[in-house]
Structure formats: structure tokens, C-alpha cells
């Protein structure tokens, strides 16, 4: 294969990172486009990975840094695909580089601007459990390591005053006049790795998410449990900042449910077991319960870990799909009425914190990308593979491939996403080599 082939990778999570690294090592010129200011994706937000309990950011950060340093990779963060045309071997893609208002070549990431910025905004990376500023670094290990001004919240852009960051920045990196820039790329192939979104459980009113403060989602818990998260790794209730006496995980919130998402998200059982174990490790005094329909601990080492979680960590598993949660208005404790389908008894359980293991759902961006590039979506809104068994990473347009959770909850774990990334690079290399011969 000639060494001048190029590929556009859309999405900077673990799947997109791995696809970029494999393609770059294979000799491709890679453009990695990421919507947010930093690559890292969901995996950067996780505390630990299951079942090895590796610290997630610890194993991811070296890969992120490698992407940044690789001579074959051009990182286009805070950027979005605007238009695409052409076909395999000759795609023309327009990418909009949003105005960061911080010059990449000048910012040293010292953080003084974020310290002094007067505007507080809910921090997306911390799932809204902490605040960030209008000029911000998404998280400490962010790549590239520079700040970004969020125009929607910046006082200068909204009211025309302030400019504190500009005054304080010794590097002179702030540029309020920066305009979005459209870049046109010519690439031979496209790899989509847009990842997943989290189902908003507000829709299920019986669980009271959004109404009861102590009902949170698993992604929120992931930040609470993380030592570098908003509570330094302590499990504290949002209502009173106190440690709960007990925590309940409820599985299949918005998944395996015809009203919302009929499929199984395939990761929730596994992370719930992990999180329950982590809670017991951090706070052995907290009782933990997992409500499940079927405990789906499949995959390498998972069943063994599930067994350990019962025997060594004393996690209580209850086979039930609870109907309703009620809050005690004074203590803000939560009472769950449930039927234990194994003992066929109806019981109440009162706990301090409820964690909803919500469905993983397609990104809304998939629709736009499918229209621009011409690839089909499946009935659920994930990218459709051209053949479920035989061509699991080929999308319905030649030269366009997918990897990671945007293909649906395939196996939906990190190793499989990494494998899909490799597979996408292999398919791309095969097809482009075939074209060259023809």
C-alpha cells in the first residue's frame, strides 16, 4: 500500500483513539475530529474499568498523549463535520473548527484564566455535579491541554464586558475575535466512532429522577466514586452531603423496555457490579443492593467477578424490577416497593441513595452524519452494519466504517471497541489496497 492514504476519524473516545493510532501506525494520515474541546470520551469519565479494576484515566491518558504526539495524526478538537461528499478513495469532508478563543500555540494550560473567570456553569465532565467556568479545561488530563471559552456563558460574548481572562493571560493566548474556520479535507476513507449518550430517566416519573435529589444516574455515580471527582471519591448524597447508609442500583432503566429502548445496553450489569464493589471498598459500612432482571455478567472474567462481589464484598442481589420510588420529605431517604420474584414476596426497602443504571442510547449526531455521508441507521438510531455477522464494522457506504458504541451495544465494552477499531482499520486497508490493484 502506498503511504499517502488518509482517513477521517469522527469521535475521540477510546474507539476513535484506537482507530486513529492503528491507522497512523499503519501509515495513514489521520484527521481525528472531536466535537468537545478534548479527546478522551466516555472512558475518561469512568473511575475504574471492569473487571480488572484498572484506573480508567490511567490507562487511557497514555493513549491520548500518543494521539497528540503521533506525527501521522492531526487532532481537530472542538470541531464538527459539516459536509461530506465523494466516495471511497476520494471523500471531500468539510470540518467546522469552532472558535475556541484561545490560541492553541500560545496557551500553556496554566489555568489562571479558569481560576479568575467569574462565570460558573455546570461541569459536563462531572455530570453537572460540580461547576466549571465559562473558560475551562474539560478535565485535568485533557488533550490538547488548553482552555476553551464557551461563548454561550462568557460574559463578554453575552454582555460585552469582563475580559478578565485576557488581562490575566501572561501567554497572550486569549483571542476574542477568533472566528470559526471551515477546513476541507480530502480523505480516502471515513471511520465513525461517535459513541453513546445516556438515557435521561426523567421520562420514568415513578423513579423520581430530577425530583428526588438522592436519585442519581450511574454516570453521575461514576464521578462521585472517582478520587479526582467532585467529592474526592467519597460517596456523599446530593441532598445533604452526607454518607448514605445504603445504596441501591436499579438495572434496565430505559432499556429492555418497549416504551423506551427495547434492547439490552449490555454494560449496565457489569458496571453496577463494579460500582457496588467500589462502594464497599471505599465505605465497607454502606450496604449495597442491586435490583436486576437477569444478571448479565458475560465476557472475560465477569462471571467470576460477579461471584466475588457476592462472596467477598457482600453485595445483595435482588431479582426484581421495582415499580416506584418514594421520598421521605424529611430525611430524603428513598423507599422502594418491590416484588422479589425469587421469593415472591412484596417488600419495602428504604435506602439513602438510588443509582439508576440507565440505557446507553445513540448520539443525536448520528442522524446528521448519516444524512451527510449517506450511511444508514438501524431502527434504534445506531449505525447499521452492512452485514450483522460477516461485515460487522462496514457501514452501508463503501469506504465508511464504524467502531465502538455507535454501532449499537454490540458487546459494548472497551476491549470490543478496541477490537472494532482495529477491524475498521483492517477493512479500510483491505479495500484501499484492492482499489489500487484494480
Amino acid at each position, binding site marked *: 500500500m502506498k503511504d499517502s492514504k488518509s482517513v477521517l476519524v469522527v469521535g475521540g473516545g477510546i474507539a476513535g483513539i484506537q482507530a486513529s493510532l492503528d491507522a497512523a501506525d499503519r501509515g495513514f494520515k489521520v484527521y481525528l475530529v472531536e466535537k468537545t474541546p478534548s479527546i478522551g470520551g466516555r472512558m475518561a469519565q469512568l473511575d475504574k474499568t471492569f473487571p480488572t*479494576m484498572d*484506573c480508567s484515566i490511567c490507562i487511557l491518558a497514555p493513549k491520548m498523549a500518543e494521539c497528540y504526539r503521533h506525527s501521522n495524526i492531526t487532532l481537530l478538537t472542538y470541531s464538527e463535520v459539516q459536509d461530506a461528499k465523494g466516495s471511497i478513495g476520494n471523500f471531500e469532508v468539510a470540518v467546522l473548527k469552532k472558535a475556541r478563543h484561545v490560541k492553541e500555540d500560545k496557551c500553556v494550560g496554566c489555568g489562571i484564566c479558569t481560576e479568575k473567570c467569574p462565570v460558573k456553569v455546570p461541569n459536563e465532565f462531572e455530570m453537572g455535579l460540580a461547576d466549571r467556568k465559562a473558560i475551562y479545561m474539560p478535565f485535568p488530563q485533557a488533550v490538547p491541554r488548553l482552555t476553551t471559552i464557551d461563548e454561550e456563558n462568557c460574559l463578554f460574548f453575552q454582555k460585552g464586558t469582563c475580559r478578565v481572562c485576557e488581562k490575566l493571560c501572561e501567554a497572550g493566548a486569549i483571542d476574542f475575535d477568533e472566528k470559526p474556520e471551515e477546513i476541507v479535507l480530502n480523505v480516502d476513507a471515513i471511520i465513525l466512532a461517535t459513541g453513546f449518550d445516556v438515557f435521561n430517566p426523567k421520562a420514568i416519573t415513578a423513579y423520581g429522577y430530577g425530583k428526588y435529589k438522592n436519585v442519581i444516574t450511574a454516570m453521575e455515580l461514576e464521578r462521585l466514586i472517582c478520587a479526582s471527582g467532585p467529592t474526592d471519591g467519597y460517596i456523599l448524597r446530593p441532598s445533604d452531603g452526607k454518607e448514605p447508609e445504603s445504596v441501591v442500583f436499579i438495572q434496565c432503566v430505559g432499556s429492555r423496555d418497549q416504551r423506551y429502548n427495547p434492547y439490552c445496553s449490555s454494560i449496565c450489569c457489569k458496571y453496577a457490579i463494579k460500582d457496588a464493589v467500589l462502594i464497599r*471498598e471505599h465505605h465497607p459500612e454502606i450496604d449495597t443492593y442491586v435490583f436486576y432482571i437477569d444478571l448479565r455478567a458475560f465476557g472475560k472474567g465477569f462471571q467470576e467477578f460477579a461471584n466475588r462481589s457476592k462472596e467477598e464484598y457482600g453485595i445483595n442481589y435482588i431479582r426484581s424490577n421495582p415499580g416506584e420510588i418514594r421520598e421521605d420529605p424529611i430525611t430524603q431517604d428513598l423507599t422502594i416497593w418491590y416484588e422479589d420474584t425469587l421469593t415472591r414476596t412484596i417488600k419495602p426497602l428504604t435506602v439513602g441513595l438510588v443509582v439508576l443504571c440507565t440505557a446507553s442510547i445513540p448520539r443525536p449526531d448520528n442522524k446528521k452524519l448519516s444524512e451527510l455521508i449517506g450511511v444508514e441507521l438501524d431502527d434504534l438510531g445506531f449505525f447499521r452494519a452492512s452485514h450483522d455477522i460477516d461485515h460487522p464494522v462496514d457501514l452501508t457506504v463503501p469506504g465508511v466504517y464504524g467502531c465502538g458504541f455507535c454501532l449499537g451495544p454490540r458487546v459494548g465494552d472497551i476491549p470490543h471497541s478496541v477490537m472494532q477499531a482495529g477491524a475498521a482499520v483492517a477493512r479500510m486497508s483491505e479495500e484501499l489496497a484492492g482499489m489500487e490493484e484494480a
Partner: protein
Amino acid sequence: MSVGYEPKILGFLCNWCSYAGADLAGVSRFEYPPNARVIRVMCSGRVDPVHILEGFKSGADGVLVTGCHPGDCHYVSGNFSTERRVEIMKKVVNKIGIDPERIRLEWVSASEGRKYAELVKEYTDSIRKLGPFPLNEISDLLDAAIGAFGSERVRWLMNKQLEEIEPEKAENVIITSIEREIERYQLFQILEKGNSTVSEMAKQTNLPSDVIVQHLIALMKQGTAAITAEAEHEYIYTLSR
């Protein structure tokens, strides 16, 4: 034992299994006592008996060597070499007044984080019971042993497969030979400090006079020692080099 005594443990961990096992103990947050200081080597087969003895000299009360389980060695058979060396060493040090428990060989795999944590805890407790290493009491002997284990003869004996002799007999031969080598190094050290006589050497080493004479004859044959004078019916021995 002395109150508040905290034993010092020196650990040698092979890179592929045991160091990874110790990493896993960390990743899994298995708490263990902070008494061990560890050194990473690529294979437990790289751990020289001299390294272990130098460990005692440098303040360790116990030395823990860990490697891959038999059959799992990243380098096929490195851990078998280690096992043989440590077994012989334990028997030899026992004879010079070091409790063999102060040297411990264990297998810890990359997935045995819990085992590693428990091992450090258990070994620390075990050494705590033994008390501090008697460094002052046996300092000279330890030096002699360091010299002996670094010597050509001992290294050959510890690593050569003696196929023509029955294994048990072979081990006895090896252990006795190493003991003799240590004795010889004791005399060598005395002579290094200055001239000496058989009776003075016997006093310092507690070795019988005839044994000392035998060693001196051997040293003279090698050309290492020589008789340079005579005083009060005794020869005075000097180092030749």
C-alpha cells in the same frame, strides 16, 4: 522482641509476574504493611545470592524473592534456577547463624494481587517475630559469605548440573563446599586487615586449628597467603598480594 520494632523487608520482584501482581494489589487497593522496599528485576533468575546478602548488610531483616509460578516463567526456566539457588542458600546461611526464614522465595503471578498483599503482611509478621537481623554479631561472617557466594567455585557449584552424583549427595557436597569457602574467606578477611597466626585466627573465628591450617595450606598453594615470620613458636601468615 523489642517494642515498636518494625522489620525491614527487601523484595526482589520479577517484572512479568510478581511486579505485575504487586501492581494489581495496588490497583485493587489491597492494603498491606509499608515495611517492604522492592527492586524490580526482569526475572527472579537475575537475583544473585550476593544481592540477598548485601540486602542484610544494608539493613534488611528479611529478603523476599518472588517470581512466576513454575511453568509460567516468562523466560521459560529462570525461576527454577532461582529456586535451586535459594534452597541451597537457605541451608548454608542457617549454618552461619542466619535464620533461613530471613530468606523467602514465593511465586506470585500477575493475577495474584491479593496473594502479594497477604504475603507481604504475613512475611512482615514472621520477621517481626524473629526480631532484628543480628548484623553486629555476624558482620564478619556475613562479609565472608558475600565473598564466598561471589567466588568462582561457589558460583560453579550452585549452577552446574551435577548429573553424575545423586541429587541428595550432590546437595550435601555443594553445601559443605560453600561452608568451607566461607571459612576460607573469613581467614582471608583477617589477613586482609593484617598479619595473623593460627591461634589468633582460631580465636576470632571459633574454627578448630586443624581446619584453619588446612585452609592456609590451600591459600598458600594458590599463592594467596605466605608465611613471612615466626613468633613465639607460631608462624605469622601474610596476604601475598
